[in-house]
């Protein structure tokens, strides 16, 4: 390769690295753009290595050079690749022929990290060092590791330690004494046996166990050794940090362990009130937005958490976790995660219906619907007061959910609302309302439905809606309903006959569901009706009454 062409190739490689640095930050590893960028960059290296064995970059603060030729310059602080390497002490980067695609990918992953924004405990050099690449080498200037005022430390320390020259007299005394000393016996090298090596392997295997658990054990020990409030303050701050740390690493087990230990010692007579106060504060901490947001991340990440452990975790939470859970309910991306949060809210909401009901004010309709679902599952009538305010919600899905829930919760206070809902514009809402009344099953509810069906304008409803109403009314298996339905079955009309037939067909359907065989004569009378709908439904009702299907 001739010189200018080589420089051009070097520039191209560098540009590829810059592009890949951005792409890797933006896309996940399975994204086609990520893969394409990696492939292209790797291809460039491979082409280069057809002619040269090494690709060596010399790094200065604002520039990068290849073969003494500056191939990159950026005087700015932002987006400066040279400075990015330079600030951690990197002075040379060498890519060697034989570079593997995997090595390049790992290298790009490192340079793509956002060191300014992410919490990364290592700098570039450490990350490169840990990777121990075979075909990517680097030269580092370690000078910056020394504090400026300690610049001379080595010289001073060395001069000082050498100051006390060994005196010739002392030396000669040692020499003379040496002849009178006992012969050496001391320690002999203890031979290492295969058994020692086996024991060592066992030790190393054991060492992989979680260190956070050990720290937790120590911290709980320290609760007993605390001598002041300050000590307790520290210990509990560390426990909170441990919770935070382990949750950030997708581990809820350490937190469960902490809470179990906390529970175990809460009743220990050896501990004073202060200690117990801090333990209770720890419980509260668990329910803060800080911790719940971490839990939400874990749930969304797809990390498998056994149901048993999730329940244990939720069991340790206090009611202050309700509001953070509601917040994250609307932010979670996966159905699985949302289901878990809903489960948690069902458990926690029982302790504070009022707090849970605040979720009804959320501006995300799906969150409101989920909260209504949770309230229904809890089944506490105290929720009615809050639910009633949601009946006029702008989203029909919410209105349906709340009506359904009101029906399940029952009680006098919901009657009027459900009755009003029967006149809602939306058919689905009306159907939900009648079903809710049916769920209530009270005499008042029955009367409301019968009255509604009896209204003149009822027959104007769609057949499907009418059928739902009649189906619901059949749940009251009493004479009043029986007579009402027989009457409806027999009702004749001069005007709007087809609508009337629909009503009668629905009455036949409802009589079949009611299960009273006394309806058979009336049904037989209409089974040969010229109206197909009435005929079909009455035949079906007879079959149901006579044969049970």
């Amino acid at each position, binding site marked *: 390769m001739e010189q200018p062409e080589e420089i051009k190739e070097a520039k191209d490689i560098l540009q590829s690295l810059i592009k890949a640095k951005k792409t890797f930050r933006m896309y996940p590893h399975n994204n086609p753009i990520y893969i394409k960028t990696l492939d292209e960059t790797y291809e460039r290296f491979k082409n280069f290595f057809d002619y040269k064995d090494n690709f060596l970059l010399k790094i200065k603060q604002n520039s990068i050079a290849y073969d003494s030729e500056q191939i990159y310059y950026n005087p700015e602080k932002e987006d400066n690749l040279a400075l990015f390497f330079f600030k951690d002490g990197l002075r040379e980067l060498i890519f060697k022929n034989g570079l593997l695609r995997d090595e390049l990918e790992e290298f790009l992953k490192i340079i793509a990290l956002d060191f300014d924004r992410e919490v990364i405990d290592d700098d570039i050099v450490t990350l490169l060092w840990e990777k121990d690449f075979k075909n990517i080498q680097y030269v580092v200037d370690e000078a910056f*590791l*020394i504090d400026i005022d300690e610049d001379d430390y080595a010289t001073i320390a060395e001069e000082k330690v*050498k100051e006390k020259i060994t005196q010739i007299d*002392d030396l000669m005394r040692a020499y003379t004494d040496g*002849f009178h000393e006992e012969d*050496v016996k001391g320690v002999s090298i203890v031979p290492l046996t295969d058994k020692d090596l086996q024991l*060592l392997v066992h030790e190393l295997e054991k060492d992989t166990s979680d*260190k956070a658990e050990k720290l937790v*054990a120590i911290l709980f020990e320290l609760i007993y050794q605390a001598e002041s409030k300050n000590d307790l303050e520290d210990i509990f701050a560390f426990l909170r940090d441990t919770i*935070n740390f382990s949750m950030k690493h997708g581990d809820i087990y350490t937190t469960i362990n902490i809470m179990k230990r906390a529970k175990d010692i809460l009743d220990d007579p050896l501990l004073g009130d202060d200690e117990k106060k801090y333990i209770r504060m720890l419980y509260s901490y668990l329910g803060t937005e800080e911790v719940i947001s971490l839990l939400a991340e874990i749930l969304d990440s797809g990390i498998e958490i056994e149901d048993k452990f999730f329940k244990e975790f939720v069991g340790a939470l206090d009611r202050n976790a309700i509001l953070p859970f509601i917040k994250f309910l609307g932010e979670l991306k996966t159905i699985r995660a949302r289901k878990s949060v809903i489960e948690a809210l069902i458990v926690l909401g029982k302790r504070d219906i009022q707090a849970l009901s605040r979720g009804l004010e959320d501006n995300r309709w799906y969150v409101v619907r989920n909260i209504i679902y949770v309230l229904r599952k809890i089944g506490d009538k105290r929720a009615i007061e809050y639910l009633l305010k949601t009946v006029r919600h702008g989203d029909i899905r919410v209105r349906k959910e709340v009506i359904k829930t009101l029906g399940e919760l029952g009680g006098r206070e919901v009657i009027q609302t459900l009755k009003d809902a029967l006149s809602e514009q939306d058919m689905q809402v009306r159907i939900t309302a009648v079903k809710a009344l049916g769920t209530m099953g009270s005499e008042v509810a029955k009367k409301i439905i019968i009255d509604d069906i009896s209204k003149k304008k009822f027959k104007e409803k769609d057949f499907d809606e009418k059928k739902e109403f009649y189906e619901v009314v059949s749940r009251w298996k009493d004479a009043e309903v029986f007579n009402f339905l027989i009457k409806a079955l027999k009702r004749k009309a001069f005007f709007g006959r087809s609508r009337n037939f629909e009503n009668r067909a629905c009455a036949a359907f409802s009589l079949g569901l009611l299960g009273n065989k006394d309806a058979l004569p009336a049904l037989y009378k209409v089974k040969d009706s010229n109206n197909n709908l009435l005929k079909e439904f009455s035949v079906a009702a007879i079959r149901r009454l006579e044969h049970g299907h």
Partner: protein
Amino acid sequence: MDIKENREIRKSAQDVINQLSVILRTAQIHDPNNIAVTLAIERFLALINQLAELEQNVKLDLIGEFFYINDIRVRYSLEYLLNFDFIIREFRKRELGSVIFKGSIDFKDMQLFLKAFIAGGFSDEPYETMLEGIDESKDIEIDRLKKIREGADVDTRKVIKKIYYNAVSYSKGVMNKIKAGEKVNIKKAKRIVETMVDQILEEEKLLLGMTAIKDYDEYTYHHSVNVSILSIALGQRLGLSKKMLTELGLVALFHDIGKIEIPNEVLNKATNFTDDEWKLIKKHPLWGLKAILRLKGLESSSIRSSIVAFEHHMNYDFSGYPKVRKNTELDLFSRIVSLADQYDAMTSSRVYSRIPLAPDKALSIMMERAGSQLDPLLFKFFVNMVGVFPIGTLVMLDTRELGLVYEANVLFAERPRILIIIDSKGQRVHGPTVDLTEKDAAGKFYRTIIKTLDPNKYKINLAEYLL
């Protein structure tokens, strides 16, 4: 790769080197076509080709005192010691650093290698002769030993000093910063420890040598660095990965950080401690834990550092401090740091007992403690690491020379390199350094250690000789 598989590969690696040594020894006595040699080659081929099936290429490197196969250090039991020693010497003699077996090797390739190896032994340019000799082989390649260079020793010592003092300076900076409530840069600590790990992996004895000098004014900072170096060196013997060694080095560097809370007048007190002072001293593990956890947000290394800071005086049998209600097994790193800490403290002049011990005496005491205060298994590895005559030991030789142990010998612990400071005529000298493994034509060692003396008793300034 699972642990069992790993263990098997390690065993195979040990057998490979041992068998290679057997071939080379046999070939030095017999003709390459002799049945003894061919049998040995057959055995070697069975081993190397089995390994090649798993690993494709098998690269054998001699780095410092150790062999590595595909970057894994080969540990060996005592029965192989002589063969390992032989092969290391033969490799060095030929400036041979690496042999790469590419895929499946056949008999012809090995014969070619053997011939080249033997020829190299008789040549003034051994490596070049070998290289020429195996030129025809497609499946075996060699590489030169990296450390044999003119003047390299001097340069390396300079680098070592720089690494050591960097670490001490950092350690001092950290302690001062924590005292002043300033932010501490852990990234820097990692970088410093990484350089120490690199150095120890390359050639542990030089950096270990730096720990032998104890007369510094700023004991606490030097002690932290010494414990870190000794721990890394022990960790290396235990076969810990580079990443683990860094973590260990970092943890060890911070093990005594709790001492910043102890007033200087107590810490540097010339007389024995009072009961109250002892109480203060015994608090430093707890203070250490707190200081580390307060340094910055929690991370894996700070968790481990805090555990070690808390446990490093508890002792293997929990007879130490702090006392806890329920004892749980000490962390591996705590047990390592505890060994390094005791050894460095005992051999230093500003410790609780106030009487610095000669290194070999310190080891004797530690031996008595192995199994009670100290982990007996780790102690075995520790003794193997520092040797029976650790660097800085003052010794009398059977040649009536007085010297200081200058470099340990991994294979023959009782035969280190010695810097002569009084010659056989009783004259003060500065050198030469002699290797106690050297023998005369009759196979008798030129020099042997017969007595050890305490350099502190005679106010011998090791820095004058070892730095």
